[in-house]
Each structure stands twice: as structure tokens, then as C-alpha cells.
């Protein structure tokens, strides 16, 4: 019923607006989308939106884009998802291209270098904050800690992150089957 009343262009328009004001990435998008889609228009109920947010954090890629795809898909199937993504991404892409063009024209490199040198130091702090938050969200046990150290040492040796992530997925699959076998054996012993 809802699908008929929502227009593709509306989805595009709302996400275009969100793309313009979204500062600070993934963690800010939930309150903004909640305001637009739940409170203002009531197109999605709040529980569903929170569900979507959890899913988009678990999927590969960028959280905000994944969330926009899920909302778009819910409202108008695949084309809804498509218009949501293009709406969200249009203004950031244009802004970045414009800024790059301006930066090319600045010839006082020493000035820029000094400022970006300082900004780089703040990136260390940003990384620290991101890690703190990610670590609090996960449930670290001994195996996680072990895997964390292994990956850290490997990545210091310039091993490609793609290889590390693929081998982590394989490790998860092996662990999964291994644990299942133990559980089955226990069950057999009990019988």
C-alpha cells in the first residue's frame, strides 16, 4: 500500500538533503534518517529502521550508503534503492571535486603542508577514538584478542588487507565447523 504513495523522486530528494548535511559519517545518519522517515513522514516504523541500521553496520562497505540502500529498497524495491544511493552520493561527490579543483590552484605548498601535518596528528586521535568505540561494541574474548594480535603483526609486514580479511573469513568458517563437530560429539556421548 505504501509503495504506491511514495515517489522515486521523493526518495532521491530526501537523501540528497541528507547527503548535504551529513557530517561525520556513519554514526550520525541514524538520528537524521529517523527524523526524516519516521517522525516527519512515517514511511517506516522505528524498530525496522534500527534493524536496518544494525544490518548495515554488519555488511561490507560504508554504513550510511548501506542504510540508504535498505531504506530505498523497503520503500520502492531496487529502483528506490538506486535513487536513494544517488541522492545520498551526489552532493558529496560534487563538493569533493570542487574542493580538489580549488586546492590545485593553491601554490603556497609550505603553508598547506604545515596545516595538514598537524591534521595528520589529529588523525591518530581519530583512529584511537574509532578503535575505542569498535572495541566496546564487540565482545572480546581470548580468541578475538589472539586474532587481533596476529592480524596486527601481519599488517605491519605490509600484507594486503584483502588477503587478511579473506583468510579471517576462512578462519571463521573453519571455527564454525569445528565447534559444530564438538557439539555433535557431545550430543552423541550424552546419548
Amino acid at each position, binding site marked *: 500500500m505504501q509503495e504506491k504513495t511514495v515517489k522515486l523522486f521523493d526518495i532521491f530528494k530526501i537523501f540528497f538533503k541528507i547527503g548535504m548535511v*551529513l557530517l*561525520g559519517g*556513519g554514526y550520525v545518519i541514524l538520528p537524521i534518517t529517523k527524523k526524516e522517515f519516521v517522525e516527519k513522514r512515517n514511511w517506516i516504523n522505528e524498530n525496522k529502521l534500527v*534493524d536496518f541500521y544494525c*544490518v548495515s553496520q*554488519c555488511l*561490507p*562497505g*560504508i554504513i550510511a*550508503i*548501506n542504510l540508504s*540502500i*535498505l531504506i530505498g529498497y523497503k520503500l520502492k524495491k*531496487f529502483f528506490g*534503492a*538506486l535513487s536513494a544511493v544517488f541522492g545520498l*552520493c551526489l552532493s558529496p*561527490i560534487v*563538493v*569533493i571535486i570542487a*574542493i580538489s579543483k580549488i586546492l590545485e590552484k593553491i601554490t603556497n605548498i*609550505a603553508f598547506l603542508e*604545515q*596545516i*595538514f*601535518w*598537524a*591534521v*595528520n*596528528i*589529529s588523525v*591518530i*586521535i*581519530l*583512529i*584511537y*577514538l*574509532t*578503535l575505542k*568505540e*569498535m*572495541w566496546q561494541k*564487540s*565482545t*572480546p574474548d581470548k580468541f*578475538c584478542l589472539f*586474532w*587481533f594480535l596476529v*592480524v596486527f603483526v601481519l599488517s*605491519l609486514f605490509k600484507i594486503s*588487507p*584483502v588477503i*587478511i*580479511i579473506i583468510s*579471517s*573469513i576462512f*578462519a*571463521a*568458517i573453519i*571455527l564454525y565447523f569445528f565447534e559444530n563437530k564438538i557439539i555433535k560429539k557431545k550430543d552423541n556421548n550424552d546419548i
Partner: protein
Amino acid sequence: MIYSVQFLICFEFFKIGLFTFGGGLASLPFLYEIMDKYHWFNEFQLSQLIAISNLTPGPIGLNMATYCGYNILNIKGALLSSFSLILPMLVITSFVFKLYKKFFENKLSNKILYILRPTSCALILAVGVKLFYNLIINKGNIDYLGLTLLLVLFLLTFKIKKDPLIYIFISAVFGFIVYCIKSF
């Protein structure tokens, strides 16, 4: 075999879209790998890129990809990199939409996520250590000015909660002051 630059951009950013978990800074290790592999941009440009993607609206991962693409092949590169970044998400997320309840209940997918979280953390930490080594230790000559700034920012994390803009703004002002002192 020699591939064209256009193809390589699509391939590399498609990979980033497919393999990053945890948003934002998670794509940094991949960008460092691209820098080491192709030398399309240098470390100075990479630091510009991080600052600018945080300061402009939009998802940080997307901003970084667009900016990288622009540095490689101008507007054409920017469009190529951002579209190939989005493509895997569009496919996977649309696919998952129909079965996301099962996805949460599935033990295997939970197991994969359980391992990928510490993996992603470790990859980002490695970038942090690398940055610290390059900026502060700097081949034996310890940069005391940088170290001071880092300590001040670290102490601020106890006062201000997560808002990346404040830290970037404070350090940009610090850099500006240092430039003024040095040039006079």
C-alpha cells in the same frame, strides 16, 4: 599483462567497497596499500584526503574514494572510483534485504562477524602506528612539537566526546600558528 589506469581504479575501489567493515576509517589500510602499489598519490596527498573527507559532508569512505580518484585521473577518475566503490554495496545490500532476519539468526554469519570485528580493529590500529612512526618518531628525530599536539589532543578526549571535527579544527589552527611562527 598491462591494464589501463581506468580499469585499475575500478578494480581497486571495487575491492575497497567489498572488503571494508566498520565504515569511515576502515578503508585507510586499503588506501595505503594502493599508495605503495601504484604511487598514484603520495603521503602528503593522503593526509589532505583524510582531513578533507572529514570536513566535507557525506560518508567519509565515499569522500576519500572520490578524492583519490580525482588525484589519479581528474573528474573521470573521481566518478569511476566512487561508482565502483558503491557497486558491490548496491548488489550485496539489495540481496541481503530479503533475508536479513535469517542473516542475524544464522550462526555462520555471526561467526564471521565475530572474527571480522577484531580484524578490522587491528588493520586500523596498524595504520595508526604507521602514522605515529612517520610523524612523531620520524627516523630517530623525535618531533617534540608534534608530540605535544598529540598529548594535548589525547587529554582533550577525556573532556570532549566523539566529534572528529573539533580535533581536526584544533590541529589545523595549531598548524597555522606553527607556520606563522616559522615564516617570521
